[in-house]
């Protein structure tokens, strides 16, 4: 019980800090810091998506960048057509409304996750890792070689997509959108985790044979979780495209998939605020050590090694103790 309360406190602290830092930067006129915080929020959101599959369901997807990139391309392509006034396909117009773009990003990512999941969830362990990687690489090379939307040069978004009532070109207002969306996604994760579905999913991670013996089909539950996971990561991708105002195949590259896994492990696998802590650590590392040496990823690797060897629960586990399901 005490550990539960400690995790709650830590979560509140993380949520407040992620809001307070850019708020300070807003008043101190440090737009760069606001942009960094927005990046943390968006990466954390993508991480929450992966955390649902990997943390709760034990599905180590090494291809989640494909959803991140697909979401990004949804934002880029729709904005591109809205800008040029040309139809996307079959006479459907583009759009520069974030709400519509998120919906499209979630639908397409969810659909792709359904296909990838249906084909790869028949395997597990290393085979699952490899199949998800293979799918992601397929789409990576497709994006690379498809000239209509920039190919390997990527696709710029000249004017950020719009959110009703806000000016998304202002860093602070874009941050508020990303932060609000992150909190919504975290709430969704918490609700799912506490539900019957969550109970079944976590049970399947720990012992699929037992779950089946009480009448819960592992395949169906994992597939649904994988689809929700892909949708969340896809939406985060759309946000990221708007933050950087640029989409490129790199968003789908395996390095991006790896980065998402690193975020989960650093923060705490399966923990509600694990991805938030993980994304903050990753971006913080990049800023602090990236300024000193171009080999900052080497040091990040050392930290990751230390976490895997000595602090399996990641940052949240280190401060709030072991995860318990009373």
């Amino acid at each position, binding site marked *: 019980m005490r550990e539960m309360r400690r995790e709650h406190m830590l979560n509140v602290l993380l949520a407040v800090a992620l809001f307070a830092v850019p708020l300070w930067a807003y008043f101190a006129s440090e737009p760069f810091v606001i942009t960094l915080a927005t990046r943390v929020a968006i990466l954390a959101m993508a991480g929450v998506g992966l955390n649902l599959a990997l943390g709760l369901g034990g599905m180590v997807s090494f291809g989640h960048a494909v959803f991140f990139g697909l979401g990004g391309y949804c934002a880029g392509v729709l904005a591109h057509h809205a800008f040029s006034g040309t139809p996307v396909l079959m006479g459907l117009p583009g759009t520069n409304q974030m709400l519509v773009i998120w919906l499209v990003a979630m639908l397409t990512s969810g659909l792709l996750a359904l296909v990838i999941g249906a084909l790869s969830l028949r395997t597990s362990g290393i085979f699952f890792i490899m199949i998800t990687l293979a799918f992601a690489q397929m789409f990576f090379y497709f994006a690379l070689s498809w000239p209509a939307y920039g190919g390997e040069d990527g696709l710029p978004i000249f004017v950020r997509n719009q959110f009703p009532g806000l000016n998304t070109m202002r860093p602070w207002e874009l941050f508020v959108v990303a932060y609000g969306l992150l909190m919504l996604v975290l709430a969704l994760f918490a*609700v*799912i985790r*506490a*539900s*019957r*579905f*969550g*109970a*079944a*999913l*976590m*049970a399947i991670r*720990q*012992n699929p*044979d*037992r*779950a*089946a*013996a*009480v*009448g*819960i*089909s*592992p395949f*169906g*539950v994992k597939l*649904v979780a994988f689809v929700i996971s892909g949708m969340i990561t896809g939406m985060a991708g759309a946000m990221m495209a708007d933050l950087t105002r640029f989409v490129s195949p790199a968003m789908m590259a395996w390095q991006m998939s790896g980065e998402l896994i690193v975020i989960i492990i650093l923060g705490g696998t399966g923990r509600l605020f694990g991805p938030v802590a993980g994304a903050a650590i990753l971006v913080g590392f990049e800023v602090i050590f990236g300024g000193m040496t171009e080999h900052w990823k080497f040091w990040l690797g050392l930290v990751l090694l230390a976490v895997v060897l000595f602090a399996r629960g990641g940052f949240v586990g280190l401060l709030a103790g072991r*995860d*318990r*399901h*009373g």
Partner: protein
Amino acid sequence: MAEPVLELSHLNKAFGALKATDDVSLTLVPGEIHALIGPNGAGKTTLMAQISGKYAPDSGSIRFRGQDITRLSVAQRARLGLGRSFQISSLIPEYSARRNVMLALQARQSHPYRFLMPVRHDRSLTGPATEILTRVGLEGRASVPSAELSHGERRLLEIAVALALNPVCFLLDEPMAGMGTEGVGTLVTFLKALKEQAPILLVEHDMDAVFRLADRITVLVYGRIIASGSVDDIRNDPEVRRAYLGDEVDT
């Protein structure tokens, strides 16, 4: 005899040249404990795996309450009312004893695709779970993660989970494995009462317990049934004594 709940007919299963199950037919009728015995490597576990749905037989059929279930998955069979316990305790390690039972209860109540209501304080689960844990004597250990329970307690939790499924029949795979004499005594009394609720197909190594419990015994050797009958029939069957029991019966 009453209509059988479970009926295996002419099951065959081979792994390469090894016939693990060789033309096995048997039935389980309401109100009985049917024990399946045999030396190590006789194919008991393989047979249980075919009944529970983990392996598909090469030929033959399994009928459950008159319905052919040979091609159904493990989860589908469980939902029809086939409640099993595992030879080696197979629980959800991070879940407390209570949540292990609650998982079985929730699976019986509804499909798992319910995303909104929190499960932890769901009265329709916590109430019956506590009741079942009390029935097997684990109420004092309800909040302990199953990984931290003692071996004997985990065996009892296996039974509790099977009970929670309120099954039409029980498949118990060596429920007494590794238990002390006292634990075995308690469990024998418990299973005797349990068979009135639903018949039990029991795989067990503890011969003493089998002879005290079973209404019928089937002896499996090298995947084949060499004898089947009442406790006395089996005790006095010369082939069984030679193949399996050895001197154990005489002492």
